């Protein structure tokens, strides 16, 4: 390839995932079994290293109603702070039993989504600069969402790291940074981080153009 051939085919345009996204991506939630192997929101298998955590929340529309048909995917580093991907060349331990990707949907009745995973470690920042606080990347899609929305979950008990985080700090208004911070609680012996997402309105979550 020529070094200055930076040109580009235009990206395929996005379309809404629609109300029946579950059929393709979570058929069990749509109401049937078809694949032998299904992708789920429970990714802390027995061999995975790290602190078990539960992430739970609801997604609100601009009228304050809980949405019940949303796809949620998360992408995160392992407990040592390394992504399971060849582009991550940090000198940290790779955990081959942990892909780092979860998929789930908000419940049709309650609107609650649940992800069972491990708490990620801190990852080097852009081009190896200042480390980022532990975080989980979120991507959501649904009926009425024309193009998938990207945001990040930061951990409420990582106050010192969050204050230094280079991404949180580019958000001009400190009040809005709080929309990305999930408070910690303990319930039935499980560590639970509650991460509610507001699509619109006074408490609108910070979404990123990545």
């Amino acid at each position: 390839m020529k070094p200055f051939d930076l040109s580009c085919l235009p990206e395929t345009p996005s379309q809404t995932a629609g109300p029946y996204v579950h059929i393709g991506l979570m058929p069990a939630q749509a109401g049937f079994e078809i694949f032998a192997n299904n992708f789920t929101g429970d990714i802390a298998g027995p061999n995975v290293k790290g602190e078990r955590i539960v992430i739970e929340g609801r997604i609100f529309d601009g009228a304050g109603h809980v949405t019940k048909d949303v796809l949620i995917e998360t992408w995160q580093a392992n407990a040592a702070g390394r992504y399971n991907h060849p582009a991550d060349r940090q000198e940290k331990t790779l955990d081959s039993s942990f892909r780092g990707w979860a998929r789930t949907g908000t419940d049709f009745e309650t609107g609650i989504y649940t992800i069972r995973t491990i708490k990620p470690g801190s990852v080097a920042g852009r081009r190896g600069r200042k480390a980022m606080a532990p975080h989980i990347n979120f991507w959501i899609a649904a009926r009425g969402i024309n193009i998938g929305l990207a945001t990040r979950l930061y951990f409420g008990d990582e106050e010192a790291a969050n204050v230094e985080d280079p991404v949180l700090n580019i958000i001009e208004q400190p009040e809005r940074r709080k929309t990305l911070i999930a408070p910690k609680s303990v319930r039935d012996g499980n560590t639970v981080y509650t991460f509610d997402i507001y699509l619109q309105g006074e408490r609108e979550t910070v979404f990123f153009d990545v």
Partner: protein
Amino acid sequence: MTPDAEFHQRDRSIHPPAYTPVYKTSGLRSPRIPLWSLQNSLSEVTGPMFTPEELGPLDNDLVLNYAKTGQPIGEQIIVHGHVLDGNGRPIRNTLVEVWQANAGGRYRHRNDTYIAPIDPNFGGCGRMLTDENGHYFFRTVKPGAYPFRNRVNSWRPAHIHYSVFGSGFAQRLITQMYFEGDPLIPHDSILATIPDRSAAERLVARLDLNASKPLECLAYRFDIVLRGRRQTLFENKLQGS
């Protein structure tokens, strides 16, 4: 191109904006504050990878993957194409997932109450990995059109939903594919959310007679382009030359 290269900035003008009055459900589900632009870090240039062992042998054959007592009703078709990045390079081993209504326009979903019947032999979903040329293919039945609640008489043209990953999470894309010649296309409120007409036309799959199977089924071709990665000029050494 190194796998850690940052992605080109997304050209938002070819995508639907968050709020599109023509598609009413977007009204209360659209962020109104501008997105914060985030230069890529490892969190964006990496993404999940999948292996062939995770998929079943019939996962890309919607004609057979839910067949109980026989084959599903409808016109059988092959759909195929390439998944490329913005630099024209194939994206290999990437997961492509599809879902659709049956030939009568009904989804196998507990929330779909349309009058068309469920087909006992059709699930309506499939998945596959691209090969080393970025090529994918699946077999299915052509989906039917169906009405939906938007305006009082809104109909969806026949379409297949796609979910694609790419090699980094910032390439994640969900879209829909339409069929060349469908008279409902100019009337569709979902396709109309895309402001750029030539961009919308790229979602229309073309009849591909060369890929059809004589005396058996027609084929349609749908190529997908995900964002390309930048060349890292002046950093370390020149890449990709």
